[in-house]
């Protein structure tokens, strides 16, 4: 397995290189110009040209690319054009809220969705099954921001149980302030993932429940709980784990709406702000970072298959 991991890690290098080149070119060829945003609404065209020169944006794209790759090789993602801060510092400032929100969402989702999906499969066709499916459809259909606003209005404004917005670090402010700020975003974000994973779990478990070995287990007199947990769920785990893994990757890069609705200073908002301002180094740095996370998560998912299915060997 060790040699497989090494091979997979080495295989990521060309992927990263292609992503880097593609992102760099896409940004340079897309409309918009950081110099005009920096100069502000009341600057002249002459000012914009001078700022472009000072930022090195007038240099040929190949020269800019070579410089960027050179810095990248030394682990330097560059300096934000606007804030003048290193991209690594900006990612460092924003990574904790996003990671914690991802973690709480995935934990809550798994705790709710897997039992719900298993139950629905076990009681297929019953009112429980229909209830779970109804929730899934609703979960997919309600936009995240609508759910967020409803929760804020009811829980934060009317009941005044939780704060409207913001993020408090568990390490700086303690557990309770952290929980108070993360509960509503977690609930908001979990709904769609609960819907997705519950459906996936239901389908996988239902399929496994039709297998001969499940009938054999039942014939041997095993309890339904054992049949479900030991035989059905474990064998249905591979597609469920894949979806959970993809969910984590999506959450890390795609929680911009939730972060905006709850004013959480995470990576999603950093990407959006950078795109609107055309802050090239941040966009490039973040896309590379997200690519790396995707690759890493995929590797972990692939490796985790061996835990659930002994037939899989690397």
């Amino acid at each position, binding site marked *: 397995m060790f040699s497989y991991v090494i091979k997979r890690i080495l295989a990521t290098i060309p992927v990263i290189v292609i992503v880097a080149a593609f992102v760099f070119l896409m940004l340079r060829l897309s*409309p*918009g*110009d950081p*110099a*005009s*945003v*920096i*100069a*502000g*609404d*009341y*600057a*002249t*065209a*002459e*000012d*914009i040209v*001078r*700022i472009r*020169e*000072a930022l090195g944006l007038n240099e040929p794209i190949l020269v800019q690319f070579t410089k960027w790759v050179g810095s990248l090789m030394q682990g330097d993602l560059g300096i*934000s054009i*606007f*804030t*003048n*801060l290193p991209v690594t510092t*900006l990612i460092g*400032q*924003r990574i904790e809220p996003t990671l914690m929100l991802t973690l709480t969402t995935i934990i809550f989702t798994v705790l709710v969705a897997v039992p719900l999906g298993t139950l629905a499969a076990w009681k297929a066709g019953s009112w429980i099954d229909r209830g779970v499916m109804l929730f899934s459809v609703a979960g997919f259909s309600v936009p995240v921001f609508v759910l967020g*606003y409803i929760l*804020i*209005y009811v829980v*934060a*404004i009317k009941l*005044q149980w939780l*704060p*409207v*917005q*913001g993020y*408090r670090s568990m390490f700086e*402010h*303690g*557990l*309770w*302030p952290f929980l108070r700020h993360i509960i509503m975003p977690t609930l908001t974000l979990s709904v769609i993932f609960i819907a997705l994973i519950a459906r996936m779990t239901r389908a996988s478990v239902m399929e496994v429940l039709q297998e001969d070995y499940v009938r054999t287990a039942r014939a041997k007199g095993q309890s339904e709980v054992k049949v479900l947990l030991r035989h059905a769920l474990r064998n249905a785990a591979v597609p469920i784990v894949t979806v959970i893994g993809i969910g984590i990757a999506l959450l890390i890069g795609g929680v911009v709406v939730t972060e*905006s*609705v*709850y*004013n959480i*200073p995470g990576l999603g*908002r*950093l990407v*959006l*702000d950078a795109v*609107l*301002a*055309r802050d090239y180094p941040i966009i490039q740095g973040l896309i590379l970072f997200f690519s790396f996370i995707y690759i890493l998560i995929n590797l972990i998912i692939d490796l985790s298959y061996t835990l659930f299915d002994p037939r899989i060997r690397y």
Partner: protein
Amino acid sequence: MLSWTKRRFLTAAAVAIPLALGSFGTIGQAAAEKVLRVIPHADLKNLDPIWTTAYISRNHGYLIYDTLFAMDENFKPQPQMVDSWTTSDDGLTWTFKLRDGLKWHDGPDVTAEDCIASLQRWGKRDGMGQALFGVVDSLTASDAKTIVMKLKQPYGLVLESIGKISSNVPFMMPKRMAETDPFKQVEEHIGSGPFMFSKKDWVPGSKVVYLKNPTYVPRSEPTSAAAGGKIAKVDRVEWTYFPDQTTAMNALISGEVDYFEAPANDLMPILSANADITVEINDPLGNIGFARFNHLLPPFDNAKVRRAALMAMKQEDYLAGAVGDKQFWKTCYSVFPCDTPLDNNVGSDIMKTGDIDKAKAALGDSGYDGTPVVIMQPTDVPILSAFSLITAEKLRKIGMKVDVQAMDWSTLTSRRAKRDPVADGGWNMFHTWWIGADVIDPMAIAFSGNPAKGWFGWPTDAELEKARTAFAVATTVEEKKVLGKKVQERLWAIGASGHLGQFFTPVAYRKNVKGLIKSPVQFFWNMSVD
């Protein structure tokens, strides 16, 4: 006697509960400290108010830097860092003496050399600064506290320039910072103003923190706009940027923030109905809607076509359509903001009726050949997006072919700098707004008639430039008023731009906030929280 298990549980609880609840020390400290929690109008992306003209950087500048002169509520420059000043009889030598007690945030005294370097850097970026330095013969320090400015010719806007209220404001910085290339950002953020920037607390895109400057010595005069005593009445000013207006409103309602600088007009009914919140217009000049033609490209290279388009524009339609509630806008047919010293009505009849038939006839006489008009529509700025669609509709009604091209504001700001033909990425028209303070007199770049150095759209009119130059050297109020009218007459005569009326963005704050300063710029000194 407690069992071992119980004891262990209680010990663990004694350690864990305070940890879970957060640091008591921090809570106690926070209670003693007066904090003004603000939702600013934008995210503070860069910290150098000379490098950028962004208003949020200007507001940041006012917190940490100070100015030699500052505009009062009657738009008259008053001394701020300057204690006394004299002008020679021929008007060519100006001597400014700095007041006592001025210190940089890192300790040293403010010197004349620092101020000279700061003025020189500003003079390379700002339009009024460039005009001033065009007549400056020398700028020297006769001693540590005295600045001597010698002019080549008398100039009527010396104090108005160095006391300019809006971007770029001539903020004073230590010499080592002011020697930075004006087209590059300063690396440090040391000023001599009433608050200090806390770099360690800065999270771009989210939070900015300013701490009270304990060594700041305010002037003794009462606060008046940017002038007078700048008294820091809170220990900390915290800006938290909210990308979502609804969440910002909810945070104000729930008391998590104290002050909301620029709530969207559609939130006003909810905010106004809340007994704990005050909604008021704090900026007496508001914003001026602006429709800009590209004078270099057909069909708007023809003044007759531009004037025909202006005839179709009716301010009420724009303001009601884009801003909405009548209490937040008013028509204003002066190119300078209404109720300011140069407010006048010369030549502005062209925009008063919005008469489509008359405009159609004028277009027919103009020689318009059916060239399509490309209007850039910034869909991420709702007011400007609406302005674009209203203009498109009006131009179509008078018989013009219109191509509205949707884009984001960043794309628009880069594309509008292009002088190329439309086929090569050029444009014919876009909309924006100016804050009233930025177009208060003919020196505003918006009114330039010099295409080489002027603003996007590049009007060309020698007479206009002559009147602007004469305004700059005029020394009496009467002269300035006459020249202001002359500039306005030329602007309407050449159909330089459409002026779409004045609209206001109110502020909203909780009842515990006191001491707001009425001004076109948001200041945070004098404000307190109970």
